[in-house]
Protein backbone atom coordinates (compact mmCIF):
# COMPACT_ATOMS: atom_id res chain seq x y z
CA UNK A 1 0.00 0.00 0.00
CA UNK A 2 1.20 3.48 -0.90
CA UNK A 3 4.12 1.96 -2.69
CA UNK A 4 5.08 2.60 -6.25
CA UNK A 5 7.37 0.12 -7.95
CA UNK A 6 9.80 1.07 -10.67
CA UNK A 7 10.32 -1.70 -13.22
CA UNK A 8 13.49 -2.26 -15.19
CA UNK A 9 11.86 -0.81 -18.32
CA UNK A 10 10.86 2.39 -16.53
CA UNK A 11 7.19 1.59 -15.98
CA UNK A 12 5.69 2.53 -12.64
CA UNK A 13 3.40 0.06 -10.94
CA UNK A 14 1.01 0.99 -8.18
CA UNK A 15 -1.05 -1.66 -6.37
CA UNK A 16 0.03 -4.17 -8.97
CA UNK A 17 -1.24 -2.09 -11.90
CA UNK A 18 0.81 0.02 -14.28
CA UNK A 19 0.50 3.76 -13.75
CA UNK A 20 -1.02 5.19 -16.92
CA UNK A 21 -0.63 8.95 -17.14
CA UNK A 22 -0.98 10.26 -13.62
CA UNK A 23 2.53 9.97 -12.20
CA UNK A 24 2.14 13.04 -10.00
CA UNK A 25 -0.16 11.12 -7.67
CA UNK A 26 2.67 8.67 -7.05
CA UNK A 27 5.29 11.26 -6.09
CA UNK A 28 4.61 10.96 -2.38
CA UNK A 29 4.54 7.17 -2.38
CA UNK A 30 7.31 4.99 -1.14
CA UNK A 31 9.38 3.86 -4.09
CA UNK A 32 10.52 0.27 -4.51
CA UNK A 33 12.99 -0.81 -7.17
CA UNK A 34 12.33 -4.07 -8.95
CA UNK A 35 15.25 -6.36 -9.55
CA UNK A 36 17.42 -5.34 -12.46
CA UNK A 37 16.68 -1.63 -12.24
CA UNK A 38 19.50 0.49 -13.64
CA UNK A 39 20.02 4.22 -13.85
CA UNK A 40 18.66 3.90 -17.38
CA UNK A 41 15.32 2.77 -15.90
CA UNK A 42 14.94 6.21 -14.31
CA UNK A 43 15.36 7.89 -17.70
CA UNK A 44 13.00 5.38 -19.28
CA UNK A 45 10.48 6.27 -16.60
CA UNK A 46 10.78 9.98 -17.46
CA UNK A 47 10.45 9.16 -21.14
CA UNK A 48 7.21 7.29 -20.35
CA UNK A 49 5.87 10.02 -18.04
CA UNK A 50 7.08 13.29 -19.63
CA UNK A 51 5.39 15.35 -16.94
CA UNK A 52 8.13 14.24 -14.55
CA UNK A 53 10.73 15.98 -16.72
CA UNK A 54 9.40 19.27 -15.40
CA UNK A 55 10.58 18.53 -11.88
CA UNK A 56 14.07 19.88 -12.52
CA UNK A 57 15.42 22.32 -15.12
CA UNK A 58 18.38 20.04 -15.84
CA UNK A 59 16.25 17.02 -16.73
CA UNK A 60 15.64 17.92 -20.39
CA UNK A 61 19.41 18.21 -20.91
CA UNK A 62 20.05 14.84 -19.32
CA UNK A 63 17.21 13.28 -21.32
CA UNK A 64 18.97 14.45 -24.48
CA UNK A 65 22.21 12.85 -23.31
CA UNK A 66 20.39 9.67 -22.42
CA UNK A 67 18.81 9.48 -25.89
CA UNK A 68 22.19 9.91 -27.54
CA UNK A 69 23.86 7.24 -25.39
CA UNK A 70 24.28 3.66 -26.65
CA UNK A 71 21.28 1.40 -25.96
CA UNK A 72 23.35 -0.90 -23.78
CA UNK A 73 26.78 -1.43 -22.29
CA UNK A 74 26.92 1.96 -20.55
CA UNK A 75 28.93 0.86 -17.54
CA UNK A 76 32.22 1.59 -15.83
CA UNK A 77 34.60 -0.77 -14.07
CA UNK A 78 35.38 1.37 -11.05
CA UNK A 79 32.36 0.31 -9.02
CA UNK A 80 29.70 -2.39 -9.06
CA UNK A 81 26.57 -0.30 -8.83
CA UNK A 82 25.04 3.00 -7.85
CA UNK A 83 23.35 3.51 -4.52
CA UNK A 84 20.84 6.20 -3.68
CA UNK A 85 20.95 6.99 0.02
CA UNK A 86 19.96 9.57 2.57
CA UNK A 87 21.99 11.37 5.21
CA UNK A 88 20.78 13.07 8.36
CA UNK A 89 23.38 15.31 9.97
CA UNK A 90 22.97 16.75 13.43
CA UNK A 91 25.44 19.56 13.83
CA UNK A 92 25.86 20.80 17.36
CA UNK A 93 28.94 22.96 16.95
CA UNK A 94 30.15 25.42 15.70
CA UNK A 95 27.21 27.75 15.18
CA UNK A 96 23.56 27.21 16.02
CA UNK A 97 22.62 23.54 16.42
CA UNK A 98 20.91 22.33 13.27
CA UNK A 99 19.72 19.24 11.49
CA UNK A 100 20.21 18.69 7.78
CA UNK A 101 18.77 15.97 5.58
CA UNK A 102 20.03 15.31 2.09
CA UNK A 103 20.29 12.53 -0.45
CA UNK A 104 23.33 11.17 -2.26
CA UNK A 105 23.96 9.10 -5.34
CA UNK A 106 27.25 7.26 -5.14
CA UNK A 107 29.12 4.45 -6.76
CA UNK A 108 29.51 1.44 -4.51
CA UNK A 109 31.61 -1.63 -4.86
CA UNK A 110 35.27 -2.15 -4.33
CA UNK A 111 36.07 0.11 -1.39
CA UNK A 112 34.28 3.05 0.09
CA UNK A 113 31.45 4.85 -1.75
CA UNK A 114 32.85 6.83 -4.63
CA UNK A 115 31.83 10.08 -6.30
CA UNK A 116 30.17 9.60 -9.67
CA UNK A 117 30.36 13.19 -10.84
CA UNK A 118 33.49 12.57 -12.88
CA UNK A 119 31.82 9.91 -14.99
CA UNK A 120 29.89 10.69 -18.11
CA UNK A 121 26.30 9.54 -18.20
CA UNK A 122 27.17 7.05 -20.93
CA UNK A 123 29.31 5.19 -18.40
CA UNK A 124 26.60 5.08 -15.76
CA UNK A 125 23.30 4.32 -17.46
CA UNK A 126 23.52 0.55 -17.20
CA UNK A 127 24.96 0.42 -13.72
CA UNK A 128 22.60 -1.38 -11.29
CA UNK A 129 20.73 1.08 -9.10
CA UNK A 130 19.82 0.33 -5.50
CA UNK A 131 18.25 2.11 -2.58
CA UNK A 132 20.65 2.43 0.31
CA UNK A 133 20.45 3.17 3.99
CA UNK A 134 20.06 6.30 6.00
CA UNK A 135 23.33 7.57 7.44
CA UNK A 136 22.86 9.45 10.67
CA UNK A 137 25.82 11.59 11.57
CA UNK A 138 26.07 13.49 14.82
CA UNK A 139 28.70 16.23 15.00
CA UNK A 140 29.48 16.94 18.61
CA UNK A 141 32.57 16.51 20.72
CA UNK A 142 32.97 13.35 18.68
CA UNK A 143 31.55 12.45 15.31
CA UNK A 144 29.15 9.54 15.60
CA UNK A 145 27.84 7.73 12.58
CA UNK A 146 24.97 5.24 12.43
CA UNK A 147 23.21 3.47 9.57
CA UNK A 148 19.49 2.61 9.44
CA UNK A 149 17.14 1.05 6.96
CA UNK A 150 14.80 3.68 5.51
CA UNK A 151 12.23 4.44 2.81
CA UNK A 152 12.32 6.97 -0.02
CA UNK A 153 9.39 8.50 -1.82
CA UNK A 154 9.32 8.81 -5.58
CA UNK A 155 9.81 12.56 -5.51
CA UNK A 156 12.99 12.52 -3.42
CA UNK A 157 14.27 9.63 -5.51
CA UNK A 158 13.92 11.52 -8.83
CA UNK A 159 14.86 14.89 -7.41
CA UNK A 160 17.91 13.55 -5.56
CA UNK A 161 19.21 11.74 -8.62
CA UNK A 162 18.83 14.74 -10.90
CA UNK A 163 20.32 17.10 -8.32
CA UNK A 164 23.39 14.90 -8.12
CA UNK A 165 23.61 14.59 -11.91
CA UNK A 166 23.47 18.36 -12.27
CA UNK A 167 26.95 18.46 -10.76
CA UNK A 168 28.38 16.35 -13.53
CA UNK A 169 30.95 18.29 -15.43
CA UNK A 170 33.41 18.51 -18.16
CA UNK A 171 36.61 16.93 -17.03
CA UNK A 172 36.71 15.11 -20.34
CA UNK A 173 37.54 18.32 -22.15
CA UNK A 174 40.22 19.28 -19.65
CA UNK A 175 41.82 15.86 -19.77
CA UNK A 176 41.94 15.87 -23.55
CA UNK A 177 43.91 19.05 -23.71
CA UNK A 178 46.22 18.30 -20.84
Amino acid sequence: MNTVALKRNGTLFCDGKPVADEPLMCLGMQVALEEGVRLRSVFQMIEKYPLLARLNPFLPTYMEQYRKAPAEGCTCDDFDGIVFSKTVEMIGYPGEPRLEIYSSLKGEGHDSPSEIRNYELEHLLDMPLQLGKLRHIVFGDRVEEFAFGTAFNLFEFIDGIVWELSFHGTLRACALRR
Partner: protein
Amino acid sequence: MFEKIIFATTGTPTCDHAAHVAFDLKKKYNSELTLFHSMGMPSRGFSPFIKDSRTGENEYMDNDYADWIKEELKTYYAKQLAEAGTVAIETSAGESHREILRAARKYDADLIVMGAHSREEEAGATRYRSVVGSTMQRVAKGAKCPVLIVSRPCTTCLWYFSNIIFGTDFSKASYSAFLFAYQLAKEIGAKLHLFHALDISSIHSGKTISQDEIEAMIAEARQRIEKTYVSQMDDYDNYEVEVWEGVPYVEILKFARERNGDLIVMSHHTREVDPEDAVLGSTVEQVVLRAACPVASVNRPDKVS
Protein backbone atom coordinates in the same frame (compact mmCIF):
# COMPACT_ATOMS: atom_id res chain seq x y z
CA MET B 1 47.87 41.13 -16.71
CA PHE B 2 47.89 39.96 -13.12
CA GLU B 3 50.73 41.80 -11.46
CA LYS B 4 49.49 41.28 -7.92
CA ILE B 5 47.44 38.30 -6.88
CA ILE B 6 45.98 37.48 -3.49
CA PHE B 7 45.20 33.88 -2.78
CA ALA B 8 42.80 33.78 0.17
CA THR B 9 43.07 30.40 1.81
CA THR B 10 41.97 28.47 4.85
CA GLY B 11 45.07 26.30 4.49
CA THR B 12 42.89 23.18 4.19
CA PRO B 13 42.15 20.74 1.35
CA THR B 14 39.03 22.72 0.36
CA CYS B 15 41.35 25.40 -1.05
CA ASP B 16 43.62 22.97 -2.92
CA HIS B 17 42.01 23.52 -6.31
CA ALA B 18 42.18 27.28 -5.85
CA ALA B 19 45.83 26.95 -4.75
CA HIS B 20 46.62 25.10 -7.95
CA VAL B 21 45.23 27.99 -10.00
CA ALA B 22 46.83 30.72 -7.86
CA PHE B 23 50.32 29.25 -8.08
CA ASP B 24 49.80 28.49 -11.77
CA LEU B 25 48.94 32.12 -12.42
CA LYS B 26 51.94 33.34 -10.52
CA LYS B 27 54.17 31.13 -12.61
CA LYS B 28 52.62 32.19 -15.88
CA TYR B 29 52.48 35.92 -15.24
CA ASN B 30 55.41 36.17 -12.87
CA SER B 31 53.00 37.91 -10.52
CA GLU B 32 53.53 38.97 -6.94
CA LEU B 33 51.56 36.39 -5.01
CA THR B 34 50.33 36.94 -1.47
CA LEU B 35 49.05 33.94 0.38
CA PHE B 36 46.53 35.34 2.80
CA HIS B 37 44.85 33.69 5.75
CA SER B 38 42.32 35.29 8.05
CA MET B 39 42.85 33.77 11.47
CA GLY B 40 39.47 34.49 13.02
CA MET B 41 37.47 36.95 15.02
CA PRO B 42 38.58 38.48 18.32
CA SER B 43 36.30 36.96 20.94
CA ARG B 44 35.27 40.49 21.98
CA GLY B 45 36.51 44.03 21.37
CA PHE B 46 40.26 44.22 21.72
CA SER B 47 40.47 40.84 23.40
CA PRO B 48 43.71 38.94 22.77
CA PHE B 49 41.62 35.81 22.19
CA ILE B 50 40.37 34.98 18.74
CA LYS B 51 37.90 32.42 17.57
CA ASP B 52 39.83 30.40 15.01
CA SER B 53 38.03 30.52 11.66
CA ARG B 54 38.76 26.86 10.94
CA THR B 55 38.28 25.11 14.26
CA GLY B 56 35.92 27.47 16.06
CA GLU B 57 38.19 27.18 19.12
CA ASN B 58 39.34 30.18 21.13
CA GLU B 59 43.06 30.87 20.70
CA TYR B 60 45.37 33.39 22.34
CA MET B 61 46.40 35.75 19.58
CA ASP B 62 49.94 37.09 19.70
CA ASN B 63 52.92 37.21 17.37
CA ASP B 64 53.85 33.65 18.24
CA TYR B 65 50.41 32.43 17.23
CA ALA B 66 50.57 34.37 13.94
CA ASP B 67 54.05 32.95 13.25
CA TRP B 68 52.79 29.48 14.04
CA ILE B 69 49.93 29.91 11.53
CA LYS B 70 52.35 31.16 8.89
CA GLU B 71 54.62 28.22 9.55
CA GLU B 72 51.64 25.89 9.20
CA LEU B 73 50.75 27.47 5.85
CA LYS B 74 54.37 27.15 4.70
CA THR B 75 54.29 23.47 5.56
CA TYR B 76 50.93 22.93 3.90
CA TYR B 77 51.99 24.64 0.67
CA ALA B 78 55.65 23.55 0.87
CA LYS B 79 55.67 21.90 -2.56
CA GLN B 80 54.08 24.83 -4.37
CA LEU B 81 56.20 27.38 -2.49
CA ALA B 82 59.38 25.57 -3.40
CA GLU B 83 58.57 25.90 -7.09
CA ALA B 84 57.00 29.35 -7.00
CA GLY B 85 59.88 31.50 -5.77
CA THR B 86 59.01 34.47 -3.60
CA VAL B 87 55.55 34.36 -2.09
CA ALA B 88 54.45 36.62 0.74
CA ILE B 89 52.45 35.00 3.53
CA GLU B 90 50.17 37.29 5.47
CA THR B 91 47.66 36.73 8.23
CA SER B 92 45.32 38.96 10.14
CA ALA B 93 42.57 38.65 12.72
CA GLY B 94 39.05 39.76 12.01
CA GLU B 95 36.05 38.87 9.90
CA SER B 96 37.41 36.90 6.99
CA HIS B 97 35.76 38.83 4.15
CA ARG B 98 36.73 42.21 5.59
CA GLU B 99 40.32 41.12 6.07
CA ILE B 100 40.57 39.71 2.55
CA LEU B 101 39.14 42.92 1.08
CA ARG B 102 41.45 45.00 3.27
CA ALA B 103 44.43 42.98 2.09
CA ALA B 104 43.33 43.34 -1.54
CA ARG B 105 43.22 47.11 -1.10
CA LYS B 106 46.50 47.21 0.78
CA TYR B 107 48.39 45.24 -1.87
CA ASP B 108 46.45 46.82 -4.73
CA ALA B 109 45.61 43.34 -5.98
CA ASP B 110 44.59 42.76 -9.59
CA LEU B 111 42.94 39.46 -8.75
CA ILE B 112 41.69 37.55 -5.72
CA VAL B 113 41.71 33.77 -5.99
CA MET B 114 39.65 31.73 -3.57
CA GLY B 115 37.70 28.53 -3.14
CA ALA B 116 33.92 28.54 -2.94
CA HIS B 117 33.53 26.88 0.43
CA SER B 118 35.41 26.66 3.67
CA ARG B 119 34.62 22.95 3.94
CA GLU B 120 34.16 20.04 1.58
CA GLU B 121 30.49 19.50 0.81
CA GLU B 122 28.58 16.62 -0.64
CA ALA B 123 26.51 17.63 -3.63
CA GLY B 124 23.30 16.77 -1.80
CA ALA B 125 24.25 18.80 1.25
CA THR B 126 24.80 22.00 -0.69
CA ARG B 127 21.11 22.53 -1.36
CA TYR B 128 20.36 22.97 2.32
CA ARG B 129 23.30 25.17 3.13
CA SER B 130 24.53 28.46 1.94
CA VAL B 131 25.36 27.37 -1.57
CA VAL B 132 28.50 29.40 -1.79
CA GLY B 133 30.50 30.27 1.30
CA SER B 134 29.42 33.54 2.84
CA THR B 135 33.01 34.81 2.89
CA MET B 136 33.26 34.25 -0.84
CA GLN B 137 29.95 36.00 -1.47
CA ARG B 138 30.96 39.02 0.55
CA VAL B 139 34.38 39.24 -1.05
CA ALA B 140 32.84 38.96 -4.51
CA LYS B 141 30.41 41.72 -3.61
CA GLY B 142 32.95 44.14 -2.20
CA ALA B 143 36.07 43.52 -4.26
CA LYS B 144 37.21 46.16 -6.70
CA CYS B 145 39.20 43.61 -8.62
CA PRO B 146 38.02 40.38 -10.27
CA VAL B 147 37.49 37.42 -7.95
CA LEU B 148 38.35 34.01 -9.34
CA ILE B 149 36.35 31.29 -7.63
CA VAL B 150 37.70 27.78 -7.99
CA SER B 151 35.56 25.05 -6.51
CA ARG B 152 36.31 22.07 -8.70
CA PRO B 153 39.57 20.57 -9.93
CA CYS B 154 40.93 22.35 -12.96
CA THR B 155 43.64 20.48 -14.79
CA THR B 156 44.42 22.91 -17.56
CA CYS B 157 43.79 26.33 -16.13
CA LEU B 158 45.24 29.48 -17.49
CA TRP B 159 48.20 27.85 -19.18
CA TYR B 160 45.95 26.34 -21.81
CA PHE B 161 42.70 28.27 -21.64
CA SER B 162 41.12 28.20 -25.03
CA ASN B 163 37.47 29.01 -24.36
CA ILE B 164 36.31 31.86 -22.17
CA ILE B 165 32.57 32.14 -21.62
CA PHE B 166 31.26 35.59 -20.82
CA GLY B 167 27.69 35.49 -19.52
CA THR B 168 25.89 38.81 -19.66
CA ASP B 169 22.62 40.24 -18.41
CA PHE B 170 23.44 43.59 -20.08
CA SER B 171 23.89 45.35 -16.74
CA LYS B 172 26.53 47.96 -15.98
CA ALA B 173 28.51 45.45 -13.94
CA SER B 174 28.35 43.00 -16.82
CA TYR B 175 30.31 45.51 -18.87
CA SER B 176 33.15 45.30 -16.33
CA ALA B 177 32.99 41.53 -16.60
CA PHE B 178 33.15 41.85 -20.38
CA LEU B 179 36.27 44.01 -20.20
CA PHE B 180 37.96 41.41 -18.03
CA ALA B 181 36.91 38.52 -20.27
CA TYR B 182 37.94 40.35 -23.42
CA GLN B 183 41.32 41.45 -22.09
CA LEU B 184 42.05 37.95 -20.84
CA ALA B 185 40.96 36.32 -24.11
CA LYS B 186 43.15 38.72 -26.07
CA GLU B 187 46.09 38.18 -23.75
CA ILE B 188 46.06 34.40 -23.92
CA GLY B 189 44.60 33.98 -27.39
CA ALA B 190 41.44 32.26 -26.24
CA LYS B 191 38.12 32.22 -28.01
CA LEU B 192 35.63 34.56 -26.35
CA HIS B 193 32.05 33.33 -26.21
CA LEU B 194 29.64 36.18 -25.61
CA PHE B 195 26.56 34.52 -24.19
CA HIS B 196 23.16 35.71 -23.05
CA ALA B 197 20.42 33.51 -21.63
CA LEU B 198 16.98 34.85 -22.38
CA ASP B 199 14.99 34.25 -19.23
CA ILE B 200 11.61 33.64 -20.80
CA SER B 201 9.94 32.77 -17.53
CA SER B 202 10.54 36.27 -16.21
CA ILE B 203 9.38 37.88 -19.45
CA HIS B 204 5.99 36.35 -20.11
CA SER B 205 4.80 36.01 -16.49
CA GLY B 206 2.06 33.53 -17.23
CA LYS B 207 1.36 34.55 -20.83
CA THR B 208 2.15 32.21 -23.67
CA ILE B 209 4.68 33.66 -26.05
CA SER B 210 4.99 32.43 -29.57
CA GLN B 211 8.10 31.02 -31.19
CA ASP B 212 8.24 34.12 -33.42
CA GLU B 213 8.28 36.38 -30.39
CA ILE B 214 11.05 34.34 -28.79
CA GLU B 215 13.07 34.48 -31.98
CA ALA B 216 12.57 38.23 -32.20
CA MET B 217 13.82 38.61 -28.62
CA ILE B 218 16.83 36.43 -29.39
CA ALA B 219 17.61 38.55 -32.46
CA GLU B 220 17.31 41.69 -30.36
CA ALA B 221 19.66 40.29 -27.69
CA ARG B 222 22.17 39.38 -30.38
CA GLN B 223 22.07 42.91 -31.75
CA ARG B 224 22.55 44.26 -28.27
CA ILE B 225 25.62 42.08 -27.76
CA GLU B 226 27.01 43.25 -31.11
CA LYS B 227 26.37 46.89 -30.25
CA THR B 228 27.50 46.84 -26.62
CA TYR B 229 30.42 44.44 -26.66
CA VAL B 230 31.53 43.41 -30.14
CA SER B 231 31.84 47.06 -31.19
CA GLN B 232 34.44 47.49 -28.41
CA MET B 233 36.61 44.62 -29.59
CA ASP B 234 38.42 46.42 -32.44
CA ASP B 235 39.70 43.82 -34.85
CA TYR B 236 39.61 40.87 -32.43
CA ASP B 237 37.71 38.25 -34.37
CA ASN B 238 38.14 35.12 -32.25
CA TYR B 239 34.69 35.34 -30.73
CA GLU B 240 31.22 33.91 -30.97
CA VAL B 241 27.85 35.40 -30.04
CA GLU B 242 25.20 33.05 -28.74
CA VAL B 243 21.78 33.62 -27.20
CA TRP B 244 19.78 30.73 -25.75
CA GLU B 245 16.43 30.81 -24.07
CA GLY B 246 15.68 29.08 -20.78
CA VAL B 247 16.64 29.25 -17.12
CA PRO B 248 19.80 31.42 -17.13
CA TYR B 249 22.04 29.32 -14.87
CA VAL B 250 21.04 26.08 -16.59
CA GLU B 251 21.71 27.57 -20.01
CA ILE B 252 25.09 29.03 -19.02
CA LEU B 253 26.19 25.70 -17.57
CA LYS B 254 24.94 23.84 -20.64
CA PHE B 255 26.67 26.29 -22.93
CA ALA B 256 29.94 26.12 -20.96
CA ARG B 257 29.87 22.33 -21.07
CA GLU B 258 29.06 22.22 -24.76
CA ARG B 259 31.81 24.67 -25.69
CA ASN B 260 34.33 23.12 -23.27
CA GLY B 261 34.55 26.39 -21.37
CA ASP B 262 37.75 26.84 -19.35
CA LEU B 263 36.54 29.94 -17.53
CA ILE B 264 33.15 31.54 -16.99
CA VAL B 265 33.14 35.30 -16.43
CA MET B 266 30.06 36.98 -15.00
CA SER B 267 29.05 39.91 -12.89
CA HIS B 268 27.51 38.83 -9.66
CA HIS B 269 24.30 40.71 -9.09
CA THR B 270 20.82 40.87 -10.47
CA ARG B 271 20.12 43.49 -13.10
CA GLU B 272 18.21 45.92 -11.00
CA VAL B 273 20.40 45.96 -7.92
CA ASP B 274 23.18 48.42 -7.34
CA PRO B 275 26.54 46.63 -6.79
CA GLU B 276 26.79 48.28 -3.38
CA ASP B 277 23.61 46.56 -2.24
CA ALA B 278 23.88 43.32 -4.14
CA VAL B 279 24.68 39.96 -2.66
CA LEU B 280 25.71 37.16 -4.95
CA GLY B 281 23.08 36.83 -7.66
CA SER B 282 21.38 33.50 -7.71
CA THR B 283 22.52 32.82 -11.26
CA VAL B 284 26.19 33.17 -10.34
CA GLU B 285 25.68 31.19 -7.17
CA GLN B 286 24.20 28.27 -9.10
CA VAL B 287 26.91 28.51 -11.75
CA VAL B 288 29.72 28.54 -9.17
CA LEU B 289 28.18 25.56 -7.48
CA ARG B 290 28.05 23.37 -10.56
CA ALA B 291 30.60 24.68 -13.02
CA ALA B 292 33.45 22.33 -13.69
CA CYS B 293 35.69 25.28 -14.58
CA PRO B 294 36.66 28.32 -12.50
CA VAL B 295 34.23 31.24 -12.39
CA ALA B 296 35.41 34.85 -12.34
CA SER B 297 33.09 37.32 -10.70
CA VAL B 298 33.72 40.88 -11.83
CA ASN B 299 31.57 43.59 -10.45
CA ARG B 300 33.45 46.85 -10.85
CA PRO B 301 35.49 48.51 -13.53
CA ASP B 302 38.40 49.62 -11.29
CA LYS B 303 40.88 46.94 -12.30
CA VAL B 304 39.63 46.07 -15.73
CA SER B 305 39.08 49.32 -17.61
